């Protein structure tokens, strides 16, 4: 009888799936000399294969606390601790350029994507990512054991990084990289756009261009841009309160130049505002939106404070006619 057939029958016997005729066939074969011995070896091999990866023991408590973390609403962090972390960050950031070489790409990659609507993910270290539409994050599957928590971003995401001073958290985009130890920040890096923008909500972040030496350190409520065409990294002046505005739908400004306000309207709320009078672009604007205030209220407020006229062109497109800086 065919050798292969016997193996199939022996496997079937282990699975308790032998039919009457199978049984007869196998019984017949087993009667022949030496066949009992052969069958025994295959049985042993089958038993042995059941030991595959038997030594692996997952960490139940670690897994459970990670899940519990995700199930409960995010707790507020203590301010004193945050300050200490920021100070620690100042010292450790100095060491970071050295550490880049530690990060080695591996063949196995974990991918998180958002598709048509924003999605929230938890990373293996408990850090959280709110991924905006059409965005993608990838990281090596041995992330948990690597010395740098490195990942790549295409698109836009808000990160809340669990502090771990011994393992810097690093986000790479096509043109830039961001390194932190534990903080919350928003990074926007859609490949089709001319700018990569970083807005820090809390903590301290090192933002650098992939090519060359440019690096900026950003603290809480600061924002920086990287211009892909000119390859220039620059800090946006003033305080930025809108790191997570694409999630909340609310924008706030404190003495922000109008040109920056326009960029934020576009980035966060997909609202296109055109200035008829270009000299307005350097005027500063302050607006503290209350819960539930709409984009329309912001735009009306903007028109009033510059004594301009707001006109709606079509959905999401407005033009501001006339006007001048207040004072």
């Amino acid at each position, binding site marked *: 009888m065919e050798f292969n057939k016997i193996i*199939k029958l022996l496997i079937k016997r282990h699975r308790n799936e032998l039919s009457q005729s199978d049984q007869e066939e196998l019984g017949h074969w087993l009667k022949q000399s030496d066949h009992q011995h052969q069958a025994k070896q295959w049985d042993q091999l089958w038993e042995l294969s059941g030991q595959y990866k038997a030594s692996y023991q*997952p960490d139940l408590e670690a897994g459970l606390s990670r899940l519990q973390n995700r199930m409960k609403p995010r707790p507020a962090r203590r301010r004193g601790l945050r300050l200490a972390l920021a100070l620690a960050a100042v010292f450790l950031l100095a060491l970071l350029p050295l550490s880049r070489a530690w990060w080695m790409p591996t063949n196995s990659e974990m991918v998180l994507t958002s598709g048509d609507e924003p999605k929230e993910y938890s990373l293996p270290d408990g850090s959280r990512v709110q991924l905006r539409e059409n965005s993608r994050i990838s990281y090596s599957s041995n992330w948990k054991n690597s010395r740098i928590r490195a990942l790549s971003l295409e698109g836009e995401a808000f990160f809340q990084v669990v502090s771990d001073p011994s393992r810097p958290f690093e986000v790479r985009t096509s043109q830039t990289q961001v390194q932190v130890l534990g903080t919350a920040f928003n990074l926007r890096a859609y490949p089709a756009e001319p700018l990569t923008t970083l807005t820090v909500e809390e903590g301290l972040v090192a933002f650098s261009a992939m090519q060359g030496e440019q690096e900026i350190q950003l603290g809480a409520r600061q924002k920086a841009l990287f211009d892909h065409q000119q390859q220039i990294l620059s800090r946006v002046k003033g305080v930025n309160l809108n790191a997570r505005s694409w999630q909340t739908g609310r924008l706030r400004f404190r003495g922000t130049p109008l040109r920056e306000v326009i960029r934020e309207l576009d980035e966060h709320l997909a609202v296109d505002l055109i200035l008829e009078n270009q000299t307005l672009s350097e005027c500063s604007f302050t607006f503290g939106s209350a819960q539930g205030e709409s984009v329309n209220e912001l735009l009306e407020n903007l028109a009033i404070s510059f004594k301009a006229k707001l006109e709606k062109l079509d959905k999401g497109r407005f033009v501001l006619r006339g006007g001048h800086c207040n004072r």
Partner: protein
Amino acid sequence: MLRRDSQRAVEVLFRQHYAYLCRTAYRLLPDESLAEDLVQEVFYELWKRHAQLTISTSFKAYLRRATVNKALNYLRDNRKLSFDGEETTGIPDPEPGIAQSLEAAELQEKIDEAVDQLPERCRIIFILSRFEEMSYQEIADQLDISPRTVENQISRALRLLRTALGPYLPFILLILSGAGG
């Protein structure tokens, strides 16, 4: 059970099944942190969707099925798994001059290595049949291949394992009986 105090219920299920599910995912992938990530997602989704969820089988069966699906989807999405075309086997020849004794830990290593080196789709089919209590038909449906292919691949796996592990069998027997099974 899940409707009332859902978080506690999910935690209880997690304690009961986490290790088992991680092993299931790990055998398929095989990558520890990836396996744990996927199982984490299974539970997180269970928690998020518990209100809409109707489970007709046991929780264990439901969770296992969800885990197997996730692992297979992962392998597919990352193009680690293709069910068309032939694959070559990476099974090495056994080392000449086998040591006189084989420690249990070494044996574990040999077994893991031998299975890891099976051609990918052969390995996946073998794992599903060996550990996941799935019938040939179920595996065939899951992977969109014929039950005959499933059967062929399983016996192929065993033949390849014999090539890799055969020379160790006499020692293995000693260790297994010594360890009480």
